[in-house]
């Protein structure tokens, strides 16, 4: 490849995959230098992607309540009285249709840990708390986003409260938890 072909290669992959040019150059400069033996393993940029207009189905109200009303809703089984959060349209034990119930948004940490390494999407946030919270009035635990200044203060039994982001999208990330002061 000559200089102009290399530039086209970078531009094509930048455009196709949204990888910044400087990253492409950093990773592929050697490959495109013409010095790599023909038999050496060839690595190439690629991604798998599908777009959705995804329906939350029977959970739809839960996400609308977060977005519109800053409310967390659970689902109660009329037969066994268990309250699900995350909600479900039917009780999985009794097979009865559930009823919506508003929750207070408070709860208690039932298990927690500190994450120092994580996925590409959250790598800039470490260290952060990963915790299971049992929301008051429910029979289930739920993985939650926890935002705290000092991660060493969080332990099992810590009481927490839901906070809602200013900008909400109708997703579970609209809500996060902080210890109750």
């Amino acid at each position, binding site marked *: 490849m000559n200089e102009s072909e290399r530039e086209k290669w970078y531009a094509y992959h930048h455009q196709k995959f949204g990888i910044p040019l400087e990253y492409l150059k950093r990773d592929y400069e050697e490959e495109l230098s013409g010095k790599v033996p023909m038999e050496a393993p060839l690595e190439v940029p690629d991604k*798998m992607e*599908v*777009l*959705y*207009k*995804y*329906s*939350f*189905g*029977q*959970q739809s109200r839960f996400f609308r309540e977060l977005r519109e009303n800053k409310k967390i809703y659970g689902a109660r089984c009329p037969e066994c009285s268990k309250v699900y959060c995350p909600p*479900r*349209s*039917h*009780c*999985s*034990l009794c*097979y009865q249709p559930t009823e919506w119930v508003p929750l207070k948004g408070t709860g208690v940490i039932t298990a927690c840990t500190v994450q120092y390494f994580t996925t590409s999407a959250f790598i800039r946030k470490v260290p952060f708390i990963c915790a299971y919270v049992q929301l008051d009035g429910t029979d289930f635990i739920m993985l939650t986003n926890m935002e705290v200044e000092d991660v060493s203060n969080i332990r099992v039994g810590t009481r927490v409260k839901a906070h809602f982001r200013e900008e909400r999208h109708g997703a579970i990330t609209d809500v996060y938890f902080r210890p109750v002061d």
Partner: protein
Amino acid sequence: MRRVGIVGMGTTKFKARWTDKTYFELAFDAARMAFEDAGIDRKRIDCAVYGIYNDFFQRQYQPDAFVHDYLGLGLKPMVRVNSGGATGGSAIRIGYSEVASGLYDVCLVLGVEKCNDCYNYEVQTTTPEVLRAILYTADMTYDNPAGRTAASGFALAVVAHQEKFGNPTEIQMAKVSVKNHYNATKNPIAQSPKVITVEDVLNSRKIVEPFKFYDNCLYTEGSSAVILASEEVAKELTDNPVWITGVGASADYVMPGNRPNIYTFESSRVAAKKAYEMAGIKDPLNELDLAELHDAFTGTEIMAYEDCFFCEEGDGGRLVDDGTVMHDGKLPVNLSGGLIGCGHAVGATGIMQTYEVALHLRDEAGERQHKNARRGLVQSIGGTLCTWTVCLVLERGKG
């Protein structure tokens, strides 16, 4: 091996889009109907097999885990099966093995698929994005970059068959489309019930030579379930079981270069032969009363007549012309409407086909009931140029 019977079954309606249900909510509906039909509840289930094809459709990897949870089957063993369009058939085959082996007595086999959350915002429709998700299951290095679709893959096989044998003709294919859309008008769960003519099919828009719009099945969302049980439990639960008396399966070379030809689907021939051997069938045309064949495309239904030994190789088109496979013919094919009329909710399809045959064997098929259904065939195929085939022979239990 122990005898295995179908003791309960349920299916949601097959339709283009269930905006009000997620995949696990659809699965719940099918499971609940199957439990009600069997007169049991979830506690009676010993194990489960889930047929779910494409993780991209569900927007979820390992979707089986969430279905299992939603159905309240926690702590019971389960496994998910994926073999493309043959996923439903494969799921029943694995469920059969679970029970026949003696490992478990009662097995829930449930298929579900929800493809139409995939969405192309530019053209404001789902199909191009659904195709994109499907194409991730084609060979990623060579086939995917060629922009091939499932339709073009099977079109190549049909063209090869036409070159070799001079059929199926466009008119024979159109007749299959008319038949399956018509049969669907008698099926309350069908997605595409329609009374159309051969001309309507021939005049519909071209998709890929030689297929026109009406030669193709549509994309479907839905869930279907059957409950399998050992003979002893089956007899306790119902006086009208349906026995699975033949199971045949085969998986071909996925890269067609390793195949001698593409005008026949060798995996289908191997699977059908195995299923017939096991069920003691020597002359399928005379010993079967009805069949549900995998008609993702009209031309491949005709190829399936040959691959299931209803006729000699190259003679499939004749069975359309002489009426053999029509609803009132000697061996009606796809009384449900098949994939073209009823729909193709991939992971659920093979189970819907099994449900259909079993419905006839239980004398519960309503308006479309076969008059003397004693034994039926299910053919479930999938993958590039029919990588997988599963064939099942079902027989009525009641005298």
